[in-house]
């Protein structure tokens, strides 16, 4: 047990690979076994990850479950894992959503089941690794390879222009992350030039001294990589295509986890490594974020395709998160981190429901629906809960995050915050309008006449998400009290850097007053 806890992160990372090896011998033909076995294994993984939660020490910002072994000494790269309050919940989200999406795809995925489950598990490995890695090279390794399974999932089981979307997804994100790689390498080399030894240990790299002008350039390099992943307006264009064509499971993972990597990257790498630049450029990032909030909302209002609508809604939500992150107040960053979870949960649930609708009606056009509520009360109720959670209705999770973000950012950016707040109105508009047109009113499409309600599996699939929505809505403390110390330390670190920076500026008369 002690061993188990000590190496929990490695176990979490490599258990899916192990499960892949369990799955390999199974014959392609008997898909039942494949489905059930993979789902079961991901459930086991989920349970393991709950240990992470149980053994996580609160009220400390120090990294926990740390593992450190030499990997590539001549680059100073090491197998260095560890989590703090932020990555803890992101890992939990990952395991949960993987389980959920595997469970959700029993009906959607009809062919090449084996490949599908293997890819999903592979994807899980790399996602967890990305969140757990504290070594930049290791992080990048996980970060970039993640594209490949996702690309296959979109391209092989997608619909419509799946190949176009998949390729667009890969190329767009790849080009971003390669620019980012340049920034990382540069910092790595700078640290070498200053200290004379190679290291990728992020905690050491934090101490690299970089001139403010250079910081701006490097920040932009990293920014491109992360912002495309988020995606921040105007780099969002890959997202709607990928979301729209991806299979349900793919969309869930994409929205639930992959979009988080951008924000996580900012939190863990871009901002602490380049604090001055972060402070200097924060207004621009926030402006982009706020534009994203409104733009996403506006564009979703006029969407005809359910999934595309949800996709644009996530552009809007990620805008909120960026606002919270870059406002750099403890409250707002708390909110942003919480909102990462909320967005994962709510949007994931939305995609699940859209998937269910698609499985039954074989269309995603809003106009083809209507009057579903009459046929499927359970679906309606749960769907409505997730819609409201995504619309930020108080009492559900979305509200807490958004409110913290806004109230935290109001101090430093009042006007932008007010503009952002107006986003909640439009969120209500597009979500409720969509919901009305899809579920309410009268049945127009004959196919809807024999629309069967959710079966037990589907209910089990969404239930954890629904429960979490209420839990975070009514009692977010278990989450906040673990996130708060980390965020507190983060902010103090940033501010410390900033203070030093200002002091230096005053000393050297650089102050741009």
């Amino acid at each position: 047990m002690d061993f188990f806890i000590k190496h929990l992160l490695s176990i979490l990372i490599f258990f899916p690979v192990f499960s892949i090896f369990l799955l390999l011998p199974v014959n392609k033909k008997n898909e039942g076994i494949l489905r059930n076995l993979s789902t079961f294994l991901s459930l086991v993984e989920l349970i393991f990850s709950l240990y992470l939660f149980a053994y996580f020490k609160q009220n400390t910002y120090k990294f926990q479950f740390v593992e450190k072994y030499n990997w590539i000494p001549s680059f100073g790269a090491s197998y260095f894992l560890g989590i703090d309050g932020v990555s803890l919940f992101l890992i939990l989200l990952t395991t949960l959503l993987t389980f959920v999406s595997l469970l959700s795809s029993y009906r959607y995925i009809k062919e090449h089941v084996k490949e599908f489950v293997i890819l999903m598990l592979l994807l899980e490995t790399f996602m967890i690794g990305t969140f757990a890695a504290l070594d930049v090279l290791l992080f990048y390794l996980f970060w970039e390879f993640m594209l490949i399974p996702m690309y296959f999932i979109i391209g092989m089981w997608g619909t419509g222009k799946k190949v176009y979307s998949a390729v667009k997804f890969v190329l767009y994100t790849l080009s971003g992350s390669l620019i980012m790689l340049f920034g990382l390498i540069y910092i790595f080399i700078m640290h070498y030039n200053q200290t004379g030894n190679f290291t990728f240990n992020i905690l050491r790299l934090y101490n690299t001294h970089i001139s403010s002008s250079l910081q701006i350039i490097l920040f932009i390099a990293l920014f491109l990589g992360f912002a495309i992943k988020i995606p921040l307006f105007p780099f969002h264009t890959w997202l709607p295509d990928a979301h729209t064509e991806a299979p349900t499971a793919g969309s869930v993972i994409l929205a639930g986890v992959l979009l988080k990597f951008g924000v996580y990257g900012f939190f863990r790498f871009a901002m602490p490594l380049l604090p001055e630049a972060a402070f200097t450029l924060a207004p621009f990032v926030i402006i982009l974020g706020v534009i994203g909030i409104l733009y996403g909302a506006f564009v979703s209002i006029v969407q005809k395709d359910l999934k595309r609508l949800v996709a644009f809604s996530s552009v809007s939500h990620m805008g909120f998160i960026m606002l919270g992150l870059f406002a750099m107040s403890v409250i707002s960053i708390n909110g942003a981190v919480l909102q990462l979870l909320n967005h994962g949960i709510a949007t994931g649930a939305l995609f699940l429901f859209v998937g269910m609708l698609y499985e039954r009606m074989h269309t995603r056009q809003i106009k083809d629906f209507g009057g579903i509520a009459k046929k499927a009360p359970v679906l309606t109720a749960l769907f409505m809960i997730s819609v409201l959670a995504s619309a930020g209705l108080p009492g559900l999770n979305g509200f807490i995050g958004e409110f913290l973000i806004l109230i935290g950012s109001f101090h430093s950016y009042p006007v932008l915050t007010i503009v952002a707040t107006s986003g909640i109105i439009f969120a209500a508009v597009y979500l409720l309008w969509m919901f009305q047109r899809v579920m309410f009113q009268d049945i127009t499409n004959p196919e809807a006449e024999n629309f069967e309600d959710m079966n037990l599996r589907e209910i089990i699939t969404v239930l954890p998400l629904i429960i979490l929505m209420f839990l975070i809505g009514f009692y977010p403390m278990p989450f906040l009290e673990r996130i708060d110390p980390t965020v507190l330390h983060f902010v103090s670190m940033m501010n410390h850097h900033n203070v030093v920076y200002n002091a230096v500026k005053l000393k050297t008369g650089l102050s741009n007053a």
Partner: protein
Amino acid sequence: MHNAPSIYGLNFLEKSMLSIIPEAVIIIFAFLVLFFAFFEKLAKRKNSYYLSLIGIVFSILYVLMLSDRNMYGFYGSVIFNGFDVFLFIAILFSGLFTVLMSKDYIENSEMPAPEYYSLVLFGLSAMMFLVSSNNLIMVFLSIEFMSICAYILTGYIKGSTRSTEAALKYFVFGTYASAFLLFGSVFIYASTGHLNLDGIHYFLENISYVGGVDRSGGNGIKVYISIGLILFLVGLAFKMSLFPFHSWTPDVYDGAPTPITSFMATGIKIAAFAIFLRIYSLIYNFNVMNFNDILWLLAVFSMTFGNIAALLSSNIKRLLAYSSIAQAGYILVGIIGGGFYGYSGTLFYLLSYIFMTAGAFAVVIIFENSDLISLDIKRYSGIGYKYPFIAASMSFFLLSFAGIPVTSGFMGKFYVFSSAVKSGYNWLVVIALLNSAFAAFYYIKIIVKMYMPDKEPAGASISRGKIDEGLMITIIICLILTLLMGIFPQIFINFANNSVFSLWRI
């Protein structure tokens, strides 16, 4: 300068022979294989195939046995040290893969086996001589030796106009380029009075340490040596297929028998890069003149041209040819980055490059048959489901080309690029990264074809019944090593570091 470390109680000839044992072994086996050609019944059977395999393996063993030695041979016309060890291993591996791939291929287009294998072996020995040569005569001679073997092998398919045409183009182009090399070495000779590389090295050291003005010639010498080096570079750049000396590459790769294409893409390229690296580290990087900005241009043009040209090409062999041009550009980045770090990065990249290229070509051979269509990418549509393993490994190699992590390609790219950043070539690295970003498109295009056919799989199938085990072995070895170099590169990095150490120790 003949101060080779004394080897216990051997007379001069033995010492010298010791320094060329690996080559000698290969040549001996080449003769043996050739010998079979005279006897019909021996030639019929697979003997030559196995014999050449054995020869290569022996040679590898010898290299490993000698791996800690560091010696001159034949009055310093050849060197044998860690640098050669690394590259011998690499080259011998490429030869091994070539032989393994060839069996199946030869059976299909009934070509006489013994001559073929012996030529491959001769070519191998030529490459090894080239790598270890310490003398402009040796360099010229072994380049020609290598090229002639390549010419013959390129035109090896009888009655295939494509093959002959490839040989013709290769020959004219190659001879033209080596004429430049020759003429360049005239000037080097004229300016330094040496043909031995280390002689030139010491000479240049003297003049460059006294601020380029020495008792003999001074700046005038710089002018001479610079034209010499430029013309010499042309000769090598042709072998490395750098833009604008690349233009033979697609056609020759396309026309040649596919194993030979792989041989050229791996072996010859590696050898050329190796000797270039040696000469560069010995000669070019003195402040006689700054060669890095020439190389900068060459690298940028090569990678950009290669990638852009590959974007739309539908013939897999041509596509790989273009991509090899681009890869050459990436490798050059490491040399530009320079220093210990950069050179070992270059070697690492070269090694990883062998494995991915050989693997990819092995897969190409599997799906190739006499008709031309077999080279079209369309033919790969849907094989992901018919032959999952092969398709998976092909995608893996392609991803490695594209430099996606977990593959050796990523580690190599990372290594060379970081070395370039280390010595301040930021723009070069940015350009290279952007290149590899949009280069990913055409690699992924093939993966798309394999796994996401737009319609029902076009029914590509292996022309003969079963997959030859030689090809399988090749693919598996390449797969394992590509993965290994991608995840645990440290051993290979150490290996490369040692060889660079001994490169310095001249």
